[in-house]
């Protein structure tokens, strides 16, 4: 096997292909607000073995006899890439000296018929997918046509009569018009002349530095995505993933002063608007392509986006933060998902920078470990990820063994449509309700261990008693139409933007259909308070209001609302809106709801 890996045929290079158009998937211009443009990666032709590819294949589940027999009219071979592992010692970062080849699984392989017999430009005449061991076979109509084998950095499956499952995961370059990465032969030969063609995506690492094109990177990213796809398919064999683009470039760096097109991405992140995951590739400071936990964490956000819902505010966060409960849940879920997909409790994110004083070449932590002084509770992603990991993990981790399937199952169904916000409360309530009494008790115990009241946990957190300060409770207040004003204070005690108590939440039950007027008014004495307001229905924003220094009260008259439960979010603009010019701080408001004509 290893010998075959190294039998690289011809000169292989990483090429960029403009992949616009095709299948009606044209790109769109960047919308206002600096968000990235939507991607325009083309859909491949239906792979010949689409029906055989019911999952992202694993080595124990390959569909071809390996190696495929050499036969007339066929080109076959194996696609591999270099995996750079982490050092055995935590803090050691990537161990480039120990890199090794792995099969590129489930990727799209194309036979391109050379139009001039010299170059690799031409029409795609056959398409297939590699199996779990990287093998592929392209059945051609004749032996004489000069062919180039081209591997797209793309995992793909189309819905067919065998399975409803579908996915389309690509790796593209955001600094080159979101063009798809390819592993390509550079000159064509006929099937008769060269029936076996193994292509290897090399890391480019040589003698202590990157010396040539980093062809392995896109395929390493896809290999982690492949594991995540399989984890989701274990819960739902007919899972329909939407298209997802990993956007990676050697220019993508830890600098956000600039545009995404320049590679100034700041750090790895999932963009729900673009349905894209940005990853770093700057070898001078930080690369992400071999950081499986980072790649899978961001995929976890994609999973909630596609199969469930995320109410997260996004932004910067850490395990030491007191966060808005929506952020804490979404981030904790994503890290637990990554750990369960990769069967490890250790989160490792390599970097390329170290000094005598700070010798570690990675950011790492153990998901299961609790640290004195690090926040625990419904507002702490460290608590959420630890609880969810321990609920899903098997006996070797001391977990409840619900598996990732158990966690994923609770994401769908009624949880998706809960009127409460997507927090540990609504999720754990759904999860516990789906389990046997024994497992439900186990879930409650794990939550109790995180200072989250796990027994009889409710979506609107009515039973919650823990918080860093009494003023941070209740998680939701209740406001009635025509009722008295409800007093609430928002603060920047834990930071601004996405921190705990920047926003305060209200449950509002519309008992009659009609229009309502919502008012958030600074309390007497709070002369610097500037009100903000959101109306949410099942996590979706129906309305947003933001006051200003000369209009500090906000009032919103709704369109007709149907009978049901809604969530209001009230906040001080200075605590929530970046660069608003409004000073952050403790500010108090009265919230009222009235019926409107």
């Amino acid at each position, binding site marked *: 096997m290893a010998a075959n890996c190294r039998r690289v045929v011809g000169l292989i290079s990483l090429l960029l292909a403009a992949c616009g158009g095709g299948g009606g998937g044209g790109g769109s211009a960047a919308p206002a607000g600096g*968000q990235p443009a939507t991607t325009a990666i083309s859909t491949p032709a239906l792979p010949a073995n689409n029906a055989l590819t019911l999952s992202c294949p694993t080595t124990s589940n390959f569909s071809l006899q390996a190696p495929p027999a050499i036969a007339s009219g066929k080109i076959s071979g194996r696609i591999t890439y270099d995996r750079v592992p982490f050092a055995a010692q935590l803090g050691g970062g990537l161990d480039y000296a120990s890199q090794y080849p792995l099969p590129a699984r489930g990727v799209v392989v194309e036979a391109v018929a050379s139009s001039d017999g010299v170059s690799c430009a031409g029409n795609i005449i056959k398409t297939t997918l590699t199996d779990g061991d990287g093998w592929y076979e392209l059945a051609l109509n004749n032996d004489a046509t000069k062919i180039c084998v081209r591997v797209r950095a793309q995992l793909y499956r189309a819905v067919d009569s065998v399975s409803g499952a579908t996915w389309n995961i690509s790796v593209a370059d955001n600094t080159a018009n979101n063009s798809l990465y390819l592993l390509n032969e550079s000159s064509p030969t006929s099937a008769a002349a060269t029936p076996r063609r193994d292509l290897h995506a090399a890391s480019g690492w040589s003698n202590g530095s990157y010396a040539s094109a980093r062809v392995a990177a896109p395929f390493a990213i896809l290999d982690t995505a492949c594991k995540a796809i399989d984890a989701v398919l274990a819960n739902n064999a007919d899972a329909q993933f939407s298209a997802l683009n990993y956007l990676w470039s050697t220019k993508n760096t*830890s600098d956000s002063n*600039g545009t995404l097109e320049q590679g100034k991405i700041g750090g790895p992140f999932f963009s729900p608007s673009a349905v894209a995951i940005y990853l770093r590739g700057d070898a*001078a400071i930080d690369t992400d392509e071999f950081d499986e936990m980072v790649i899978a964490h961001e995929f976890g956000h994609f999973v909630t986006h596609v199969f469930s819902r995320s109410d997260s505010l996004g932004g910067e966060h850490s*395990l030491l933060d007191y966060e808005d409960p929506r952020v804490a849940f979404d981030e904790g879920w994503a890290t637990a998902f990554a750990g369960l997909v990769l069967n490890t409790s250790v989160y490792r994110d390599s970097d390329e920078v170290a000094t005598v004083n*700070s010798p570690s070449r990675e*950011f790492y932590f153990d998901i299961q470990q609790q640290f004195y002084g690090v926040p625990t509770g419904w507002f702490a992603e460290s608590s959420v990820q630890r609880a969810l990991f321990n609920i899903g993990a098997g006996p070797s981790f001391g977990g409840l063994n619900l598996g990732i399937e158990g966690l994923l199952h609770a994401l769908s169904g009624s949880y998706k449509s809960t009127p409460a916000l997507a927090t540990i409360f609504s999720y754990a309530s759904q999860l516990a309700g789906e389990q046997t009494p024994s497992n439900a008790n186990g879930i409650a115990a794990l939550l109790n261990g995180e200072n989250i009241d796990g027994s009889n946990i409710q979506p609107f957190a009515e039973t919650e008693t823990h918080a860093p300060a009494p003023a941070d409770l209740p998680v939701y207040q209740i406001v009635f139409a025509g009722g008295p004003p409800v007093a609430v204070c928002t603060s920047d005690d834990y930071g601004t933007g996405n921190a705990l108590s920047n926003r305060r939440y209200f449950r509002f039950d519309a008992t009659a259909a009609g229009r309502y007027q919502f008012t958030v008014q600074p309390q007497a004495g709070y002369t610097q308070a500037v009100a903000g307001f959101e109306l949410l229905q099942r996590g979706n924003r129906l309305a947003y209001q933001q006051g200003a220094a000369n209009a500090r009260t906000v009032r919103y008259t709704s369109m007709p609302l149907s009978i049901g439960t809604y969530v209001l979010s009230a906040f001080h603009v200075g605590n929530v809106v970046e660069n608003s010019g409004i000073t952050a701080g403790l500010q108090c408001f009265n919230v009222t709801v009235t019926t409107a004509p």
Partner: protein
Amino acid sequence: MMRMIRWLSMAILLVGCTQQDNAIAQNTKPAPIARGSLSPAAPVKLDYRIAHEVIANQQNSVSIEIATRLDHGSLLVEIAKQQGVSLLSTSQRRFDLASVPHPITFDLPVLPTDQSERFLILLLTVDTDMGPMSRSFRIDFSVPVVDDTAPPSNHP
């Protein structure tokens, strides 16, 4: 304690503040746009601004602003790598997070060369209850080079 200080500052502000507050903002503003969900990182963030246009061999300055929610322990700032830029000050600074004003700001005097790729990489390490945590940031000077030591061009 923090809240008490805040209450006192509020009281001080009340004395001199007569801001109009009867205007009401109604159904006007769009919601701010969030970028997305970042991966977990050390609890420290760096922003920077380069003082003026980057010109080769002409002294420049970078305004650094470091934000962290930590209020105890120390922050170590180190220049971990530099290329095409000479640093004109110390390459290492340490701050006591309990006493330094937040956000932490300082200026970094630099001398860019005429290389096409010019950058500094700052490594920020904070003491946390989980042990030291580091995060690195790139400061990019790689804009089109204008060398004021070069002879003037004859081309218009």
